[in-house]
């Protein structure tokens, strides 16, 4: 039986457009320009975080990073406390946050490659440690301030109401494309995802590439915390918690396969857009929380049926 095969990126994009039109039909006023910009902005936060998740999942071997949520929070808190409202300190604060994020990711990578701990377990354990670190660092007191320049660059409209975070996201999309498709690292990552043994035999230094991948995931999560802070302008102890599993969902909805070795960041971007549109639409319809959750879950299951399926046992 031959089936019409559409690229997952196209499916996700069509879905996003469909959801947007549906929103406009069901609820007049949903499909207007400024709301569309706002949805894109919310999708950008998820998209930035899911960039690292995309790399980790492409690397295969049951790769997944469940520590991103707490790294987002830690990154945001570090910037909040170090910059403390001063424009000059934003760049150093960002660099510290990125370094800490990358360090945490590297430890994840070392645990996974050197100690051969399953990624799910390692990153889950690390999430708890980072959460503990946050409490020790802050002692429950979240003092600090958001620098005005962050709000200007991230949240305020630059031109045609487009906020800076969208440009950051587009830039990240380009960088990720170059990284995955035009660098040796990208080729090696796909090779590892397809088959670790053959990659190793072809001379890929598998552990080094994987440690780098988890470090990048931590770094991108910290970057996610930075841009999120520019939007919320305040930090909470569970600021990033709601991004962990949605980042995995965005990657999967974008057509990247959890088994690894196949996928793209453009798909993840479309996936982040679909998930954000869906939850915005459900919020706009003023449905109670219970119905919203049920519809969200059911739609996610439907999306999985489109292309999140595994191989048949009988070939």
């Amino acid at each position: 039986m031959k089936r019409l095969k559409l690229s997952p990126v196209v499916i996700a994009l069509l879905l996003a457009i469909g959801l947007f039109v549906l929103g406009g039909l069901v609820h007049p006023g949903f499909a207007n320009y400024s709301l569309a910009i706002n949805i894109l902005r919310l999708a950008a936060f998820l998209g930035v975080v899911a960039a690292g998740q995309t790399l980790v999942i492409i690397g295969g071997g049951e790769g997944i990073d469940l520590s991103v949520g707490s790294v987002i929070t830690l990154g945001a808190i570090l910037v909040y406390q170090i910059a403390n409202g001063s424009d000059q300190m934003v760049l150093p604060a960002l660099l510290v946050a990125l370094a800490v994020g990358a360090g945490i990711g590297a430890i994840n990578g070392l645990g996974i490659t050197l100690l051969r701990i399953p990624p799910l377990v390692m990153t889950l354990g690390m999430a708890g440690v980072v959460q503990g670190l946050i409490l020790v660092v802050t002692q429950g007191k979240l003092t600090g301030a958001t620098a005005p320049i962050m709000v200007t660059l991230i949240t305020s409209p630059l031109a045609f109401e487009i906020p800076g975070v969208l440009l950051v996201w587009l830039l990240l999309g380009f960088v990720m494309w170059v990284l995955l498709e035009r660098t040796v690292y990208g080729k090696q990552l796909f090779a590892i995802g397809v088959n670790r043994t053959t990659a190793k035999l072809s001379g890929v230094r598998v552990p080094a590439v994987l440690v780098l991948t988890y470090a990048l995931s931590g770094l991108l999560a910290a970057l996610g915390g930075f841009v999120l802070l520019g939007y919320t302008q305040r930090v909470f102890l569970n600021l990033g918690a709601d991004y962990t599993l949605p980042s995995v969902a965005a990657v999967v909805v974008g057509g990247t396969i959890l088994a690894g070795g196949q996928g793209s960041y453009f798909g993840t971007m479309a996936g982040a857009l679909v998930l954000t549109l869906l939850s915005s639409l459900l919020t706009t319809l003023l449905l109670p929380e219970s119905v919203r959750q049920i519809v969200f879950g059911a739609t996610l299951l439907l999306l999985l049926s489109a292309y999140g399926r595994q191989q048949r046992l009988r070939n």
Partner: protein
Amino acid sequence: MIRIPIANTIQLQRIALRQSYLFALLLLIIAVAVNAALQPDFFRPGVLSDNLQSFLPLMLLAAGQTIVIIGGGVDLSVGAIVSLVDVVVVRAMGNSPSASQVLLAIALGLASGVLAGVVNGICVAYLRFQPIVTTFASSFVFSGTALLVMSSPGGNVPPSLVDAYQANLLGLPVVLWVIAAVLVLWNFLRSTRYGRYLYAVGGQSMSAYVTGVPVSLVRLSTYMLSGLMAALTAVALVMSTNTGDPLIGAPMTLESIVAVVLGGTRLRGGQGGVAGSLIGVIILSLILNIISFANVPTWWQTLVNALIVLLALTGPGIVALVRRKLS
């Protein structure tokens, strides 16, 4: 025999290093020793029984999670199923129910748990969705339904149910009997043909399929069992908390996975067992006990707990690394 031959000790060493289950047992002994040292009345029957009562819900949940993981899957919706069944049972009992109403409510709760497992199982086994995202997605459906049944904590439970949870049977706490029953049933299950199928499906689903194992059916059954155990968890929680709460299960999902891994079951599937997971739950709970008795400063408690858990999770990996370096 007084002297153990060297060959035998080496063999013993090898066995000890290979069994990740033994590592959990070792951790358990350390945890119990430290706990007993910090809490002098730790071994008093009343304290032990209190401890068991608070461990039981997560034990039941981890037992179900173990079966799914051995079968090669994972269930991220167990917490949501716990929440759902918790409110279904309390809602169905209503105010001052009769004994038959209580039993009916519990039966309804168990049925909804199994039904939730059927939904997961059909999606994973027959529609071939990926387990992690599927159960993540379905967890929204279950937790949303829980909120629909009861939007905020409330309702009350007949005191007889609470008494039953704390009661003794033949001189031993009821909860201990429940734990023993879980272990006996698991060991029986494991010795049946179904048990062999379960390990085969988790280990090598392709070869299992080729040799005639009903792979999809076995996968479906693991999610049903997990749903059932989540429902039993909810019943235990209703009996111990005395009320219904639509959010009660949320934090338990990841804890159940950590407990399973601590107990030596590998996430890859095809290996492990329920007994290890029960030990894992006890270790997790004792670590929390120890931290509160050791007067760790409040803001450090989460970090200390997480570091110990991470160390325990990485322990087998460190042992394996040392072994590779030695050989």
